[in-house]
């Protein structure tokens, strides 16, 4: 690019820790052209966020220092200008959009005021004018009622709307460059698509340059002009999007592209033929017209007693040995269904029958059976493990309580379990804090396996993980189900993963099942409009398959689920 607005040269950042110095960014050089969207990809911890924060000299800790390098903006070296001048650059020249709008928006300040704040400060406008300008921006980023919504607080909006507000805040100072740090990871696929489209629109309208950070190559493929790949603080590859996607040079990039879920992988094990074996197979799990309602707003005297139907009349049968995926956007009731099935949440009405035992009728017997024969794997690998117990202690406890293994055999069994999930045996002595996300997730799976269950329910168990690690875990599940004749219910909102792993898929929407069937069929020929929109929202790694061609494109703003206001933690 000749007309670079921003050019970074040999940017080096080091951390000065007690344990020694670590180089976090190693002589990174990059150019950003005018009106260009640059995609910055790389695994977690590769230095993507750090790179962007270094540009505006907002390092997360005083222990980190920019050691050398230059960042040229309009002929000025941002690394050498004074602090006062830097204030002008931040916001005024370079705007930032953050990954998690919920934590980055001031919860006690009105949305409009947060946008107006920058306008007043950078453009020296009066309160009245700033308000008008902020309202204008709210409209631009897609608030349907900007005048009214000016006075709302962040928590009154859905995640998508919050991210729009965040973008509004960044736009408020009229910057030349926008840095968007994983602006959609916290969002649903459908909403992710809207936000990405908004970014592109803004680029087109304002002629902005954007640096888009992500670890999702699909997003890059859909939105960016150029791609830069970071790994371990080094820039390992950079170039036009199509060139990189088509001809990646670095093995890491190749791996990254290959593990992208939107690539139609080989379909897993064929469906066990149910009817053909002659003998009628009894379903392992039968769910009949299940309802779960929550009192929203809480206690006796608080708020209006409002009922939320999290699961509204679900009926489902799951055969032994089957792998079933449940998909649906956030809040569609997937987790609630899983918990209700496992007896962890009270059922409002309906029946759950596990292996012939009706849980409502034989409550204690049913629960005892459930506890012995089912297990759950959780989304957040850190929170799912007791931080005070070592992995060995944790597994030993499960084995002891379950009592299926003789006391003397417990250590051997622990080793076996660790082998099974691909963890070194020395992990038995480690606590979750000293393990990576993927390792924790494996430990979580080991714990589920320790029960020796017939049924495992995995609730979003890969959502928090890197793509590369995601792929490993999926592979692990595939192996386990094949080896141990497990029945697996795999919950996700990422359809691509489900397509890779599951024979059958169930689509949930607002507490109901809107579609179910064999994965290939559902994905190839979705019958329900909602399923279709979900599928269309997956950013494809093929840049020529545009995002959200038609499904949910225009009227998406109405379908954004407004989340119920929750009590502050």
């Amino acid at each position, binding site marked *: 690019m000749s007309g670079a607005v921003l050019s970074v040269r040999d940017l080096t950042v080091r951390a000065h820790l007690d344990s020694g110095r670590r180089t976090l960014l190693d002589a990174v050089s990059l150019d950003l052209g005018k009106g260009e969207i640059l995609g910055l990809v790389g695994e977690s911890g590769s230095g993507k966020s750090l790179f962007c924060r270094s540009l505006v000299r907002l390092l997360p800790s005083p222990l980190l220092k920019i050691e050398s390098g230059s960042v040229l903006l309009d002929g000025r070296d941002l690394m050498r200008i004074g602090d006062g001048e830097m204030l002008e650059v931040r916001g005024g020249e370079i705007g930032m959009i953050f990954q998690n709008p919920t934590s980055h928006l001031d919860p006690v300040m009105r949305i409009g005021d947060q946008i107006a704040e920058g306008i007043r400060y950078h453009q020296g406008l009066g309160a009245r004018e700033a308000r008008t300008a902020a309202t204008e921006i709210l409209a631009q980023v897609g608030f349907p009622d900007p005048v009214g919504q000016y006075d709302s607080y962040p928590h009154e909006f859905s995640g998508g709307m919050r991210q729009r507000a965040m973008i509004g805040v960044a736009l408020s100072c009229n910057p030349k460059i926008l840095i968007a740090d994983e602006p959609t990871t916290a969002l649903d696929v459908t909403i992710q698509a809207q936000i990405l489209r908004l970014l592109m629109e803004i680029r087109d309208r304002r002629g902005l340059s954007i640096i888009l950070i992500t670890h999702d190559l699909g997003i890059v493929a859909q939105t960016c002009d150029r791609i830069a790949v970071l790994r371990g603080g080094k820039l390992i590859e950079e170039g036009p999007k199509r060139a990189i996607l088509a001809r990646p040079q670095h093995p890491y990039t190749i791996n990254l592209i290959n593990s992208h879920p939107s690539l139609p992988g080989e379909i897993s094990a064929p469906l066990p033929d149910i009817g053909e074996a002659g003998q009628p197979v009894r379903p392992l799990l039968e769910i009949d017209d299940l309802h779960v309602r929550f009192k929203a707003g809480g206690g006796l005297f608080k708020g209006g007693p409002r009922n939320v139907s999290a699961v509204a009349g679900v009926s489902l049968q799951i055969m032994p040995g089957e792998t079933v995926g449940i998909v649906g956007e956030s809040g569609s009731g997937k987790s609630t269904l899983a918990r209700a099935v496992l007896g962890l949440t009270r059922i409002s009405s309906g029946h759950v029958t596990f292996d012939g035992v009706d849980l409502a009728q034989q409550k204690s017997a049913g629960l005892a059976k459930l*506890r012995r024969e089912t*297990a*759950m794997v959780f989304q957040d690998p850190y929170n799912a493990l*007791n931080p005070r117990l070592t992995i060995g202690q944790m597994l030993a406890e499960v084995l002891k309580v379950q009592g299926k293994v003789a006391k003397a055999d417990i250590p051997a069994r622990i080793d076996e379990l660790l082998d099974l999930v691909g963890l070194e045996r020395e992990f038995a002595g480690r606590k979750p804090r000293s393990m990576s996300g993927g390792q924790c997730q494996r430990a979580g799976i080991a714990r589920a396996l320790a029960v020796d269950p017939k049924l495992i329910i995995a609730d979003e168990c890969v959502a928090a993980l890197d793509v590369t690690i995601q792929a490993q875990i999926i592979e692990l599940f595939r192996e386990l189900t094949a080896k141990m004749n497990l029945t697996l219910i795999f919950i996700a909102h990422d359809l691509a993963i489900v397509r890779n792993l599951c024979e059958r898929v169930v689509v949930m929407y607002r507490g109901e099942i809107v579609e179910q069937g064999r994965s290939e069929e559902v994905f190839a020929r979705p019958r329900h409009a909602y399923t279709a929109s979900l599928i269309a929202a997956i950013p494809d790694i093929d840049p020529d398959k545009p995002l959200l061609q038609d499904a949910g494109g225009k009227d998406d703003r109405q379908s954004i689920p407004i989340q119920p206001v929750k009590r502050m933690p």
Partner: protein
Amino acid sequence: MSIEAIAPAPAWRRLFVRRPMLAVGAGLLLFFVLLAIAAPVIAPYDPILQNAEVRLQAPSLLHPFGTDNFGRDILSRVIWGARLDLQMALIGIIFPFLIGTTVGTVAGFFGGIVDALFMRLVDIILAFPFLVLMLSIIAILGPGLGSFYIAMALVGWVSYARLIRAQMLVLKSSDYAVAAVSLGFSRSRIMFRHLLPNAVAGSIVFSMSDATLVLLSGAAVSYLGLGVQPPIAEWGVMVAEGQSFITTAWWITLFPGLSIVSLAFGFSMLGDALGELLGVHE
């Protein structure tokens, strides 16, 4: 509560160097513990022996902290006082801690009616002026250390119960609690083995500042006349009794007063340091 990554098992020396507060706090506490243990050996005089010859003497070489109106040596009384005050601080926090932790755990974990009942009780006790409740209980049981401990336990547990309960409410819906339920663990195992150890850090930190509160409550109770039995040396009583001489014999109140402050300082420092170590935020 958030858990910060800490370097795995740092050597204790590095721990102290990196956390001067820990060193100061633990050092002060250790100092008083040693003082208490060695009291019979190092105290120059019998703390309750009266000597009409040396009444109200200002600090001198013979009596470095001076003497009181009975001619008792203040230094010796301060040294012996360390025994009682440490004991007061420890017993004064242990029972509230145990009661509060148990109640908080049970209430937070079970929720519902149990929780509602306990929390109303907490509300009631919190709505009661603290010192007044103490005074009444001590008046009922008769002045003395035993009554003081009982009063502290009856009144002090609420803070711990609240802290623990709040933690339990968060933790019980944590994934590992749900996991424990789904694995068929018994409730008491989940409560006490899995959740409590994770919930208790905040209370431990709080107990350090609570220790100060215990010492001060003891002093206030002494001021209102219901402190420990004479002629026992206890700092709060010494300060309260020395009030009569505050303009003539300042040393009677100053030294026990400083002792309370330094012990309180030690506890606070230790509390702060523990808070950082355990990753607890107030």
